[in-house]
């Protein structure tokens, strides 16, 4: 091969590299290892973690453990999906394009919106993108965030706000679901972002807030961190939302220590050209047969460069595939049943946990997650539970480390995978820990 190229050595191909930066010796890292050794080394790291396969787990707060049917993982591992490129060449990627078109339809149906894109990085980044989109649509630059919004979503939005120079207003965390956001909406407000159920688990009727927003010329953005709730709860679209963003992990995707996940993004048809992210559209081929293509790419960075609606290039294709396969397997009946199972599990757990003296349930209306107030700080209590082999929830102090007023609050989730025995184990361990 070198002969055909006309050089004597590989080194000759690196001659543009400044001499002082050329390395002939390998960097200071271990040499290659066989499959068996690598499996062992990573397996040893995995064994140091206490996962839900060994400990009952009741964590939520933006990431949920559900039973994923075996067919999902089987199908997403097909090489034709797993190792395929972004579908820029539609003739050889109709498979990817068709499932993304179905995904967009499913997301629109779930949220009660008109259109959805082909996915974002995750719920939090989708939230920031939604606010920036609202700024573009309204040509305003103040965003109002609910105190019940997941802190990561708020923090990401603030980061973008800082660099793009828009304002963010947010009342204090709202563990009891009492805030009045409408009073913060003014003529400068581009949008209000509210999470439903809130990060504390509260379910809220957003109809009045939507009206207030629209009256002031602002958009209502609804964030959802647990999409399974949409099988039981009235969708944001029906309450007047203009943009809905969500974390899609709960369907089809493993917890995986926080990623990769997928952001859902849906809006009204009239705003579609201000939307970030990829979109798949229906069209015809030269023989007149229905087919799919990436479309409206004039919004995107590879065409519009610095004038693009977002700098996003990669999305979460494979996570979206897992999501859409899981939802397709469930179908209408299965999705509603799954949601009902989750709600029933949370109701059963809430009754059990509220019993010990000094413990109170702060969340009256919830889906599969709620907040309890303990008689002592929740962080150490969760550590004590972990020592007993139970992953007992997310202490509010993990998400709001500086808010002393939230110190005793514990966010607890239950899904269809939590058995009665596990709930009983948590309840009695908690009693011990609090004693």
């Amino acid at each position: 091969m070198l002969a055909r190229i006309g050089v004597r050595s590989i080194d000759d191909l690196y001659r543009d590299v400044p001499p002082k930066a050329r390395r002939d010796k390998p960097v200071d890292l271990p040499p290659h290892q066989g499959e068996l050794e690598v499996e062992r080394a990573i397996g040893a790291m995995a064994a140091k973690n206490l996962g839900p396969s060994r400990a009952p787990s009741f964590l939520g707060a933006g990431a949920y453990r559900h039973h994923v049917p075996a067919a999902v993982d089987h199908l997403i591992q097909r090489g034709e999906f797993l190792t395929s490129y972004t579908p820029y060449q539609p003739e050889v990627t109709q498979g990817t394009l068709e499932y993304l078109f179905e995904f967009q339809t499913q997301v629109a149906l779930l949220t009660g919106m008109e259109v959805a894109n082909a996915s974002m990085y995750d719920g939090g980044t989708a939230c920031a993108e939604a606010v920036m989109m609202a700024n573009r649509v309204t040509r305003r630059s103040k965003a109002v965030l609910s105190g019940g919004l997941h802190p990561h979503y708020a923090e990401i939005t603030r980061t973008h706000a800082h660099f793009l120079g828009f304002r963010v207003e947010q009342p204090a965390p709202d563990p009891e679901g009492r805030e009045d956001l409408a009073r913060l909406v003014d003529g400068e407000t581009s949008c209000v972002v509210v999470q439903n159920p809130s990060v504390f688990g509260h379910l809220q009727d957003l109809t009045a807030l939507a009206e207030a927003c629209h009256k002031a010329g602002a958009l209502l953005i609804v964030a959802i961190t647990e999409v399974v709730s949409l099988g039981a709860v009235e969708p944001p679209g029906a309450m007047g939302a203009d943009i809905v963003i969500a974390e899609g992990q709960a369907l089809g995707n493993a917890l995986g220590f926080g990623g990769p996940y997928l952001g859902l993004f849906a809006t009204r048809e009239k705003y579609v050209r201000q939307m970030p992210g990829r979109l798949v559209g229906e069209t015809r081929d030269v023989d007149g047969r229905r087919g799919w293509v990436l479309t409206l790419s004039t919004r995107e960075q590879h065409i519009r460069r610095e004038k693009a609606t977002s700098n996003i290039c990669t999305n979460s294709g494979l996570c979206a595939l897992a999501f859409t396969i899981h939802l397709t397997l469930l179908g209408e009946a299965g999705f509603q049943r799954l949601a009902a199972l989750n709600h029933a599990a949370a109701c059963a757990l809430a009754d059990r946990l509220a019993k010990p003296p000094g413990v109170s349930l702060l969340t009256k209306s919830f889906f599969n997650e709620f907040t309890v107030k303990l008689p002592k700080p929740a962080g150490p209590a969760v550590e004590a539970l972990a020592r007993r082999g139970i992953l007992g929830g997310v202490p509010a102090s993990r998400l709001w480390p500086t808010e002393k007023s939230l110190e005793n609050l514990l966010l607890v989730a239950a899904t269809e995978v939590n058995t009665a025995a596990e709930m009983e184990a948590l309840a009695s361990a908690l009693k011990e820990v609090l004693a």
Partner: protein
Amino acid sequence: IEEPLIFEQGEEGRCGVDLPEPPKVSSRLGGLGRKKPVGLPGLSEPQVVRHYTRLSQKNYAIDMGLYPLGSCTMKHNPRLNEKVVRLPGLGDLHPLQPVSTVQGALELIDTLAHWLKTLTGMPAVAMSPGAGAHGELCGIMAIRAALEHRGDARKRILVPESAHGTNPATAAACGYEVDPIPANAKGRVDLEAFRAKLGPDVAGIMITNPNTCGLFEPDIVEIAEAIHGAGGFFYCDGANFNAIVGRVRPGDLGIDCMHINLHKTFSTPHGGGGPGAGPVVLSEALAPFAPVPWVVHGAAGFDLVERDPKQQSFGRLKGFHGQMGMFVRALAYMMSHGSDGLKQVAEDAVLNANYILASLRDVMSPAFPGTCMHEALFDDHFLKDTGVTTLDFAKALIDEGYHPMTMYFPLVVHGALLVEPTETESKDSLDRFIEVMKGLAQRAKSGDAAHFEAAPKLTPRRRLDETAAARKPVLRWVPGSNSAKAAE
């Protein structure tokens, strides 16, 4: 065989997952129960398995053949990666578990960070960005945060014309003006034009190196010194790191930050367009401004910093701690290759690209003389007067069993065709590809333009009307639409 949409299949009430009957509870949904059905179709498990199996069969993939996509580094994805990421204790870990229960996960992130820092010769790395473009955002935000910290409000970012579209889009998303730098006749940054643009309001420069013409920027050290001299920072786009990994440390070239596409250089699967992961290595000057979270070595093992106690971090860029699933895969890949194997990766990638360039030099038209790095760039000069466009030529490749190469990019070359074979192709595979390319070039020159215009013919769909799709966008299935009937 046509595959109808899921909405055109199924039956009400059917379900592909066995779920137990929910116990009766009195609802605590606060009167917010769903009033109408969602509108999802009901399919059985066999129907679902067939639907997605058939859809998959309409795709091209690395598992089927060579992907000559320039600047995209479509390399083989080892199956070991897919196995280890699913290990219990990794795949099922909740991101907000107490840190005492996730020591192995934090060790893994820390180990990967160590590899990335060592390979790039940089002192710090921000792990959380979700993809390459997200990493760019992270890097430019770090630059702006560092400038703000010293009270220096600068407005412009210099970006070569040959840059990926994400570069200017990123600069804009951080509130910067984009100032383009032209390329010289050799496909490199025009050093003089660059120097002329420098000034006290230039925040930095974004350079891809090796660049999108597949060439190493020989003046890279001078560029770094100049931008630093002018008080700005040097952002290096790491998309083409595959050409130099283990052989050149970008830190030795004077860069301040660089994102790394784990799916390009470190073999995590492309997945039909994601998910990716875009960790960003940072210089000492930028490190204090990195986004949260980060892993540190504490007294009782590893710890996770989710709020910066010094309040210098520019904040949070992504939920939780980054693309853990991609970290596991990338680390498995790195450990499998080791320091020796990764160097070999770069060398083989460059060797393969040059072999293609040399083999096609006579029948096609290389955009620049000499050798290249890991990708070979051609312009459409060889198609002159044939009536065949770059697009036609690329589409004809499909009927030969290949994905098209990158077309019309970089913009600095007319009718560009950018070919990146990667190191995972064998010589036999390259030889077959070269033969096909030669055959097509000869066919184009022989006057058979009709063949190219009609291509592809052997695919599930032939060329699709993208204009119509954009004019009246149909972005979802609607009940009663007649699109189904027309499909056959």
